[in-house]
């Protein structure tokens, strides 16, 4: 099933991004957190003590759960609009 709704908007061009070096196709300018989510990449990082998987939660930049690494910096993926060739690291971010 296509999880992108296209009744109202046309997306921009198709691009590739890299998640832990694996390529993923999506449309330029889409929200990173959502692109990952609908591609079933839901487990973005590990919690600090229990090392449990965590992922997108509030989608408004408040909860900080959807943090990933881009250019070695932690960013909330819900505030990132993807660009061609973007390199994203997910996993145990506190150790990467």
């Amino acid at each position, binding site marked *: 099933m296509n999880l992108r709704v296209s009744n109202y908007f046309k997306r921009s061009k198709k691009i590739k991004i890299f998640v832990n070096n694996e390529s993923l196709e999506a449309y330029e300018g889409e929200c990173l957190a959502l692109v990952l989510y609908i591609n079933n990449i839901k487990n973005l990082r590990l919690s600090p003590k229990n090392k449990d998987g965590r992922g997108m939660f509030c989608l408004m930049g408040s909860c900080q759960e959807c943090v990933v690494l881009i250019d070695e910096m932690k960013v909330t993926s819900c505030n990132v609009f993807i660009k061609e060739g973007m390199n994203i690291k997910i996993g145990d971010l506190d*150790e990467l």
Partner: protein
Amino acid sequence: MSKTDIAIIGGGINGASTALELAKNGLKVTLLDKHSICKGASGVNAGTLTMHMTRAQLIPYAKKGWELWMSTNKWLSKDIDVEKRNGLCLAFTEDEEKLLNERSKIRKEYGADIEIISKKEALRIDPNINKNIKCAAFCAMDGYVSANQTGYAYSKALKEHKVKILNNFEVTEIEFSENNYTILSKTGEKLISKKLILATGVHLNKALELLNIKVNIKCLPQQLIVSERMPKVMDTVITVANGKLSLKQFKNGTVLIGGGWPGIGSAEENFTATKSENLIGNMRLACHAIPKLKRSRVARVWLGLEAETDDAMPIIGELPDFNNAYIIGSIHSGYTSGPYMGKLLAKKILGEDVDLSLFDIKRFL
């Protein structure tokens, strides 16, 4: 109305340490706090246990304090994270190199085991530091405590030794007769005690006023910055020549940036605020010292209020013209030596021969 052998006003590191030592020696102790145990500077300071920032005259006391911190599992609690680390004090310019040499030399004269080392040697000890340093001062006696756990650890230990803790007890009046002190709270509670200790930190002047003693206590609102967890970026406790940086990475991966950069706040108002330019200055200095720090995000900034006397030396000992009344506080970098200073005062109260003349309040009267 309750009665006690000894009432300690102020549940910070000084009051709590004195209370614990007295209780261990069989005294009936009541510890009062306006809010709760170690909620002020004792719970929010950077927790640095360094000689590189200690006032020279206080080095012997800080060394004793450091040793106590390193053995908290024996006398306090296992519920507080204390880590021993090497301490490096960095000089980035020729002027700083000169200053570092001077200051280290004097601290050494007072007993600190500090030596000046070359850039190469410093980089060997911690390869993460800025490669452009001129030289560094090294001291093996360094480390840190997670200061936010202070209240928890002391509360547990004090309870174990039957110290009565009265939270939210804001003292408004102290009446004194020859044998007794009657302490009254804002909410009308009353406590009668044979002995009295004032340990109210930044509010020491206010407490003294209740006994009609006037001493000037400055309040230094100091900013602290903590990063999010990050991979290991440093292995030592880092300070700088002029004493305005303390930097370390806790076991959980967070990095604490301190150094006493002033913010906004006063002892009277229960409110503090940051000064942006000083936050950024402090952050820049930290990232200059450990360049990899730049990768992190700042998770939280907060402020603590430090007490300082006119000569920036502590006040510890008996209050003149009073029977059985004592004071402890305003110890520069007081967290390191606090447990030892408390112990000293307790010994004095218990009748041991302890020399506290360096800290006599009479110098201000």
